[in-house]
């Protein structure tokens, strides 16, 4: 699968830590990252979901991705997918689907998938992907968003991939007899007696296909389309079934949006997830201006987990030694809708102090109205290697990236477009 959740990004540079600090923190961060990938599925569909997905037919090639985790990573890869692509599970989970693109992948198709993801809608397209050994192969890529039935919030994307076999002509339909013969000679699919799997979908193993596949554009036929659709339905049924155990039932079609506090849409989260600096977004239209987004770097810096900060006002970072005047200064600039930079003494969850070079700025949406305030934190006490960018530029770079991401939102046609008026 390809994916391109490439909204205006900022540098793909690691979070800045001094060496001593990174040595301490990196394993912990990585650990929490893995945990987050696992929880992505289990929190929505109970702890039995992985086993249930493994029970799906072995020739069903699919991935599940989580747009709310930074980098929009793959959180599940089916056995069929792994055998088709040649990657191991460890090599795939946690990575972005763009890893399967290669030099001859059509850029326009890539853009179409990126747009579908941004707009949180389903789509299908013929696509040239690459296996681990570097050989290209044509697939029918079918993308399907998964929503929570209650609040219409997107949770995951399922992408089913059906290999497209080489045909003599795009338009000639092989006779049924021919199909059966072809299907029957394929050992690896014979075990499954369903009609679908008798078809030569897994022809990627055919030696005559190797190396040739990339040359000519292949369009999916009715069989591939049917297989992709049936596969998508099967996966959705599993997800729906197991989501009932968690009390938050999912569905494949967005239900009407629920009034009240709408969560940030996935495309905004995807683009924000790419911004490596420590920052939070707060919503000035909600009572007490709560945090509605916190970056991974913010959580590492402050030691809180996401659930502990979302919905709260930023003042929990202050403590007895925090200067009241500085807090007032922040309040005043927010009221005046101005940007400001202050040096403020903040507290981590464990009670330790740090001098925070804090920059706050209003962020406008495509209607030109203030949708959020962004606060970018820099821990003054730590050396960093940001390619020699000064902390100020680094910080303002995050502000710019947030502004570009928010501004590209509600003018989009996405159904979940957020506007704050």
């Amino acid at each position, binding site marked *: 699968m390809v994916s391109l959740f490439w909204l205006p990004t900022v*540098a793909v540079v690691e979070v800045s830590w001094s060496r001593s600090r990174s040595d301490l923190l990196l394993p912990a961060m990585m650990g929490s990252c893995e945990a987050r990938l696992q929880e992505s599925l289990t929190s929505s569909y109970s702890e039995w979901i992985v086993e249930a997905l493994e029970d799906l037919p072995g020739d069903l090639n699919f991935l599940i991705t989580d747009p709310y985790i930074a980098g929009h990573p793959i959180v599940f890869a089916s056995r069929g997918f792994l055998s088709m692509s040649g990657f191991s599970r460890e090599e795939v989970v946690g990575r972005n689907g763009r890893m399967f693109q290669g030099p001859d992948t059509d850029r326009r198709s890539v853009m179409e998938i990126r747009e579908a993801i941004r707009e949180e809608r389903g789509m*299908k397209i*013929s696509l040239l992907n690459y296996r681990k050994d*570097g050989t290209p192969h044509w697939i029918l890529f079918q993308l399907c968003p998964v929503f929570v039935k209650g609040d219409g919030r997107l949770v995951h994307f399922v992408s089913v991939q059906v290999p497209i076999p080489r045909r003599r002509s795009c338009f000639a339909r092989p006779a049924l007899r021919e199909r059966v013969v072809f299907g029957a000679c394929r050992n690896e699919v014979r075990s499954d007696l369903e009609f679908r799997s008798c078809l030569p979908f897994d022809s990627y193993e055919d030696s005559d296909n190797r190396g040739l596949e990339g040359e000519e554009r292949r369009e999916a036929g009715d069989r591939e389309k049917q297989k992709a659709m049936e596969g998508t339905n099967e996966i*959705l049924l599993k997800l729906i079934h197991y989501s009932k155990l968690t009390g938050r039932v999912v569905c494949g079609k967005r239900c009407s949006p629920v009034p009240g506090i709408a969560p940030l849409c996935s495309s905004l989260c995807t683009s924000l997830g790419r911004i490596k600096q420590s920052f939070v977004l707060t919503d000035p239209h909600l009572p007490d201006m709560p945090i509605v987004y916190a970056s991974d770097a913010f959580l590492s810096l402050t030691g809180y987990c996401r659930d502990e900060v979302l919905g709260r006002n930023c003042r929990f970072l202050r403590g007895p030694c925090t200067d009241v005047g500085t807090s007032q200064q922040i309040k005043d600039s927010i009221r005046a809708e101005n940007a400001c930079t202050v040096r403020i003494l903040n507290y981590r969850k464990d009670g330790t102090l740090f001098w925070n070079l804090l920059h706050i*700025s209003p962020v*406008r949406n495509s209607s030109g109205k203030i949708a959020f305030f962004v606060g970018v934190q820099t821990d003054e006490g730590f050396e960093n290697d940001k390619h020699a960018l000064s902390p100020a530029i680094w910080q303002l770079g*995050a502000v710019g990236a947030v502004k570009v991401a928010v*501004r590209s939102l509600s003018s989009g046609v996405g159904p979940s477009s957020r506007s704050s008026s």
Partner: protein
Amino acid sequence: MLTIKRVPTVLSNYQEDAAGCGRNCLGNCCLPVSKLPLYAFRSEVRSPTTTAPHGELPADFFLNTLILGQWEGRMSRGLFRYDVTASETKVIPGKHGFAAQLNEGRHLKKRPTEFRVDRVLQPFDANKFNFTKVGQEEVLFRFEAGEDKACFFESASVDGSIPPNVVAINVSPIEYGHVLLIPRVLECLPQRIDPESFSLALHMAAEAGSPYFRVGYNSLGAFATINHLHFQAYYFGMPFPVEKAPTQTISIVKSITNNCVKVSRLLEYPVRALVYEGGISLKELADVVTKACICLQENNIPFNVLISDCGRKIFLFPQCYAEKQALGEVSQELLDTQVNPAVWEISGHMVLKRRKDYDEATEDYAWRLLAEVSLSEERFQEVKSYIFEATLMAEAEAPAADTNPKEEIAAQSITAMSPAPFPDGCLVLQ
């Protein structure tokens, strides 16, 4: 001599005062003894399409942070004529998704000026405004070729050894991050594509590494305002309609040229254009497009260039709107909206100056405007043949899908363009 009257876009705060120096400018008096931030890009860049088989970005793509951070800094210093993020933007309903922006501040308080539009190449005129007169506070950084890894110096002397390329803000931005790339500013080059400068612009697009950061070029006669070599670029977080339009590959006889650049024709779009992509290296792609641009310049054909998809894809639009306008062939209704169809408008991002036009903007309007920009089919074929000759390419066979429909190719490009809508039925599972 053909001229049109138009309100010039103010690109710099120094554009209107004709005063001499006396401050830190980009001229020979100040620049050579100045220190500026310097971004040195990897000079040996492989083509973006051939890097990293598995699509990962190199870890040193930080040009975005630099541009955005510096730009935001200039914004907080109040150097822009207006806050572009406070202007309204919408997608015009319809199949193509043209974007419209209401920007009432961009052309405020300016009187129309006469512009000559029948000469694509005009000599540099030191008496007119040019970028050497810009104050250094409008400069974000220098952009130079470096070694095999991108790097940044907060403050580097501008010594005489390398002619400095600078990236400056556009004080009348169309969108966030709108900047100008001015190659070898001290050499006072007129608005004219040369191999080195075009390659520099392509490097900037590739280095930024975001599909939403596009680089554009307007020739004289195609709505460039200032005759001092410059490219423009900005961030826009959704695809331009032109990027969504289907293309049809033009078959090239391989024996004539040994390069791997793919040339296509833009389909289902109001402006006829050629699309270049691929190539074994960024240089190969740059060389072909440069030759095409030089050919247009020398044949006095105004044109616009859009560098899209991180430098992987380049659109070349020969155009004739200004000429039509000068000859009185454009309808008053279109002229009334005062939209100057430069590269961004042609790509589908319309900046409108009047609330009424913004509120009433339709896809039909955008289409009609852009249709006036396009060369006629006959003229386009002629221009295409000049370009092919100049780039040492020969078409494999008579093309013209319109007149000689090749069912398969046509069918393929159409399917490629419009993926079947996702059947709702299969998703309703409750």
